[in-house]
């Protein structure tokens, strides 16, 4: 892969990861959000794949394959099963409305850019310059997590954060060592599986897919 097309590919795929994060804030149809999440997983896999092709790194290529499978299809599939049980299939009552959270997201993106200046200063590699995009994805994930009230939306927020961290990891260090990466992917998968079970039993025990309905514990 030539240098410029490699960096262009990297830019597009990383950009897609962040755009997907924005789209999850934008849409309230949970089915659509799940598809967006899947797209984000694929974009992440493409980032890893492009890096692997560029550096001829076999371990990284394996990681890319794992990411594609786990984040592109397995996790969205698990989430889709939870979404099916949500009546209406929509995020109906975010704590702050969509326009406000979108404006918030734009602030977070700028913040991420400013906060990452120290990181990007350290290396002039094409990939390193894109690190703020990953950081921004993490912050947008935070926003989703904090402002959305459906259990599914919270899982999605968590995954956005996780994908953002993964993007930073790929861009900065071409992925953490394979054994760690496998552990990380496995952990994420297990967390989603655990959350899926929890969301389901919360739905059956108290009929709550809405976290506002779960306010037993407080001080």
């Amino acid at each position, binding site marked *: 892969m030539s240098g410029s097309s490699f960096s262009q590919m990297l830019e597009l795929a990383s950009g897609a990861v962040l755009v997907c994060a924005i789209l999850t804030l934008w849409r309230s149809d949970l089915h659509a959000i799940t598809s967006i999440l899947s797209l984000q997983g694929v974009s992440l896999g493409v980032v890893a794949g492009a890096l692997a092709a560029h550096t001829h790194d076999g371990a990284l290529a394996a990681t890319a394959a794992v990411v594609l499978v786990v984040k592109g299809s397995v996790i969205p599939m698990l989430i889709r099963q939870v979404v099916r049980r949500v009546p209406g299939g929509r995020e109906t009552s975010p704590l702050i409305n969509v326009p406000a959270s979108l404006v918030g997201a734009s602030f977070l993106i700028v913040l991420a850019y400013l*906060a990452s200046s*120290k*990181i990007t*200063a*350290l*290396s002039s*590699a094409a990939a390193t310059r894109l690190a703020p995009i990953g950081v921004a994805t*993490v912050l947008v994930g*935070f926003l989703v*997590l904090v402002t959305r009230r459906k*259990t599914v939306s*919270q899982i999605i927020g*968590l995954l956005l*954060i*996780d994908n*953002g*961290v993964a993007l*930073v*990891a790929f861009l*900065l*260090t071409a992925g*953490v*060592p394979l*054994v*760690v990466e496998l*552990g*990380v992917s*496995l*952990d994420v998968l*297990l*967390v989603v599986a*655990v*959350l899926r079970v*929890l*969301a389901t*039993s*919360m739905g059956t*025990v*108290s009929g*709550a897919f809405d*976290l506002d309905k*779960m306010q*037993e*514990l407080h*001080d």
Partner: protein
Amino acid sequence: MLIYVILGLPLAAAVAAGILPWRRWVGWMTTLANSGVAFLGVLLCAKTVNHRALGALDGSLRADALSAFMVVVIGTVSLLAVSQTNRFLRAEIDRGNSNIRHSSLYVVLVQIFVACMLLAVLSANLGVMWVAIEATTIATTFLVGHRRTTGSLEASWKYVIICSVGIALALLGTVLVYFAALHIDGAHLTSQGATALNWTSLQANAHRLNTGVMRLAMALLLLGYGTKVGLVPMHSWLPDAHSEAPAPVSALMSGVLLAVAFYALLRFKAIADGALGVGYTRSLLVAVGLGSLFVATSLLLSQKDYKRMLAYSSMEHMGLIALGAAAGSSLAIAAVLLHILGHGIIKAVLFLSAGEIYLVEGTSIITEVPALLTRRPVLGGIFGFALVALIGFPPFSLFISELNMVRAEIAVGLTWVAAVSLVLISVIFVAMMTHGRSLLLGEPASMGDPRSSSRTFAVPLITALVASAFFGIVAWPLAPLLGAAARVVAR
């Protein structure tokens, strides 16, 4: 070899408990496995006390004095907690809240939980350590939600979400550290590869890491692992999870899980101190430590539920430990480690006896359980002594460790921090005494059934109390080990 056995014991116990249907003897078998861990931990201490480190699996696993000490803490507290598992499961089954299958799952998950914590402290690689700590979250989720009530499900939901977010931030921090390690002195190093995340090499090269990246990384790590420790601002899962989880699980989580997460912070602190000097991490730790102390104090004052009271007390002690670590001297770290051990044992005793109180009284509201000492002298006595120990009365070891932490803080110039923390400790002291008095003393409304607590319950707990008092009076068996462990991370 020793390391393999230590890791293998709980795993083997988990496999066995997974295959066999739950019986009492399965519970005892896991207790045996955990006592093995504790014993081997002591052995490991003996081997590492003279600053030697043991390696295994091509250097992926590594045990130095600090790891060995943590193994002992994990072994001891899990031994205490697991020794009560049979009683707890029997009671749950008798009440129809659980069945054999759930009980099996419970035993398996507890052992996996213990194994993950052991892996976290024995790993040489900071990435693997991250994976292990994240795995503890997964293993404990269903333990927290074991009772499957609305409250416990909500608690486990909060627990998983908040801790996963925190741990994701920690991963981001770890990635940044790795990134810094790959760009030592501004040059890109690719040859380092996997060993770049080994904390020994990181610590050796610490002074050459990029300071800007390390600042960001350390802040993220403190926020991330701080979530697992239960430090502000991401502490809100802690009281819910600890009060909703079954008593042995609360004991394990409060007693060691928080400490293991703090162990991760200590490791990173050593690296960050090398790169940035002590000042940066110190100010961060002081901020979160005082914050946690403050939040814990304010919520302890008006607490009505004794299990939540214990949970907030955990937050308080984690705050104290963070302040101790902020001081960072050898003395301070040694005190921190002693505090970790003392708090682990005492908190385990308290949660286990609180579980017992809940079992016989059926409520966790303080005012609904008056005059416990009169009605159930053994149970009340254990709870009372443990509470006294927790508040920091001599002769228990927490007194010594708190005293030494304060001394260390003053020694490094954090006098105002020490002063503020002492004030807050005093307030907590009063609050806990008040709650304890209304729980333990007073006129019994009715005598109830004076069922005496069983020996399997009382003996381990009393032994633990005595041990804690013993270490409070004579520190010599521990002193060299603590010193050796402290030197691993202290400057």
